[in-house]
């Protein structure tokens, strides 16, 4: 009695495995992981691309930019994604040189949850740095009040929320703070994972948005899409021209306007605190990290096809999800870079191992 049931069960299981394996063989399965910053549009893109090419499945896990870089280096994913351009040191650890492909532009915005305050708060760079350093501890601090006349701020303690995982969003945020606050730069610095002086840790952009939403008197930083999606209040930030700007597709595009000219050949650039009256100061490109050599011909074909689609039709989805599309000059340069994948001599030019 027991044995018959076990036999049937194992037969069924074997059938299931065989079936799934057969289905699997027909599919081109590509695994990718990385940033949560652009995860919303990446997931949309991979969904749409799958509809156009049903035999290609790109499985993207948004585990943070640090994760994208780590898994690419470990070879457990076919390509990675990061908001922070890889450093020379990180690039030197790769077995196969990788290309940076900017995909969209996004903004990292301060988001807060203060009971009774529905207005958009204005933050100047020094104030933001001080809050995250822990030197401003109460919402009704004079520096905050000065920037926000007419808004009654409570005397509650500020609850800071930051990322607990290695995050490109954190990199963009800390990169900006390092540029505007020498104290931040020397004490904490800019990276995907830093030693935060104060605050709670949330996992992924979703985690921070969730924590801020649930915790009164909190302030965190999230990518614009996540802020809009979760309907949390976002603040304005004073840019390098002294204007308090709200993050949206226009102000982010403005921040990238100058970048197109200064774009280096490998696309690694930082556009935080960019010049421009209407520019949002905490904007950033975000990148796909594609290996320069992809041995599997079918995979390589699929990835190239995706990149081409992404640079053309894919850009149309950006604005609807609160991301800014790439400047045309950048797109043109990237199309040239696609041709370099699997081209002979692609390994040349890799930063030397230290």
């Amino acid at each position: 009695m027991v044995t018959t049931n076990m036999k049937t069960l194992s037969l069924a299981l074997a059938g299931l495995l065989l079936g799934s394996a057969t289905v699997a063989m027909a599919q081109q399965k590509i695994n990718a992981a990385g940033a949560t910053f652009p995860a919303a549009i990446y997931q949309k893109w991979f969904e749409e691309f799958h509809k156009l090419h049903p035999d290609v499945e790109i499985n993207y896990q948004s585990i943070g930019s640090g994760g994208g870089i780590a898994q690419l280096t470990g070879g457990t994913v076919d390509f990675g994604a990061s908001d922070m351009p890889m450093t020379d040191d990180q690039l030197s650890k790769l077995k196969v040189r990788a290309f940076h492909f900017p995909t969209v532009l996004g903004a990292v915005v301060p988001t807060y949850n203060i009971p009774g305050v529905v207005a958009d708060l204005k933050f100047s760079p020094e104030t933001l740095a001080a809050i995250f350093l822990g030197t401003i501890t109460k919402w009704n601090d004079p520096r905050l009040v000065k920037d926000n006349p007419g808004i009654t701020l409570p005397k509650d303690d500020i609850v800071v929320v930051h990322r607990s995982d290695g995050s490109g969003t954190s990199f963009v945020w800390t990169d900006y703070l390092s540029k505007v606050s020498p104290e931040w730069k020397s004490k904490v610095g800019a990276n995907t994972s830093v030693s935060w002086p104060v605050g709670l840790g949330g996992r992924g952009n979703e985690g921070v948005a969730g924590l801020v939403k649930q915790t009164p008197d909190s302030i965190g930083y999230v990518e614009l899409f996540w802020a809009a999606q979760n309907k949390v209040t976002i603040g304005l930030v004073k840019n390098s021209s002294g204007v308090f700007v709200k993050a949206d597709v226009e102000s982010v595009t403005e921040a990238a306007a100058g970048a197109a000219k200064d774009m280096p050949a490998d696309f690694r650039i930082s556009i935080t605190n960019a010049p421009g009256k209407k520019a949002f100061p905490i904007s950033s490109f975000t990148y796909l990290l594609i290996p320069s050599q992809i041995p599997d011909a079918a995979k390589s074909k699929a990835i190239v096809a995706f990149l081409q689609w992404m640079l053309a039709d894919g850009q149309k989805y950006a604005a609807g999800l609160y991301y800014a599309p790439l400047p045309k000059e950048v797109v043109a340069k990237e199309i040239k870079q696609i041709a370099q994948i699997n081209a002979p001599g692609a390994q040349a030019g890799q930063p030397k191992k230290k």
Partner: protein
Amino acid sequence: MSKRLIWRKGVNAVMLTLTGVFTVITVATLFLILGYLVYYGGRSLDWNFFTRLPLAAGEEGGGMANAILGSLEIVGMAGLVGLPVGFLAGVYLSEFEDKWFGSLVRYVADLLNGIPSIVVGLLAWSLLVVPMKQFSAVAGSIALSVMLIPVVARQTEQFLREVPNSLREGALALGASKWRMIATVAVPAGSKGILTGMILGMARIAGESAPLLFTAFNNQFWSGGIAQPTASLPVMIYFRALSGYEDWHRQAWAAGLVLIAVVLTANILARLVLARGVSVPRG
């Protein structure tokens, strides 16, 4: 009645009532947990949940069909490895044990049982994910099977020991060899309990999330085979619960309900199999 006696009787009454209250609190926790899951999960369960793949952030109507199948796959494979190994190890402990070796194996099995699940995940990661350069369902299954083996081994041993020796001696006296006696007499006699142990073990690993975080990882699509990252219910619950979306929270509740239904049903079934007031060793 002296004052002291009144005091002692008072203390007696208070403390005994307190123990009853504590018991109520303990049991009530179970019902609270179930209640929340049924309420929130029940509201979120729909046909989409069982049939559709997860959708992009912000899009409603996605499901966890791939995670359900993925869990079945990973747990099934873990069982394929863990159940026979555990069973045979249990047979050894009960029927063949040699002086110190047997006690050592038994003691170590109990220690293996207590290893934190995340450490087992680290083991599977270093043994499989790193060399294969791939997150895979099979890595997750190996991690789970390491957790399954000691449970099944000890339960098998327990229930085989409860088979009366007279049965064994009868078979041996009739001329059966030892292994034949075990296979045809001892094991069938203890089969109810052994099966219970297996079901309980499988139920336990079905709910594990930590060992899968960096072995089977996760997948938006159907699993691409045993050597591909695979979604599983416990891992999905974790990621969805931590997100900021109402829709994803709902899905987490629904998944929680499904998971607990499976785990608790298996537990209840297993123990009912062993009814008649026999004290059941816990798994």
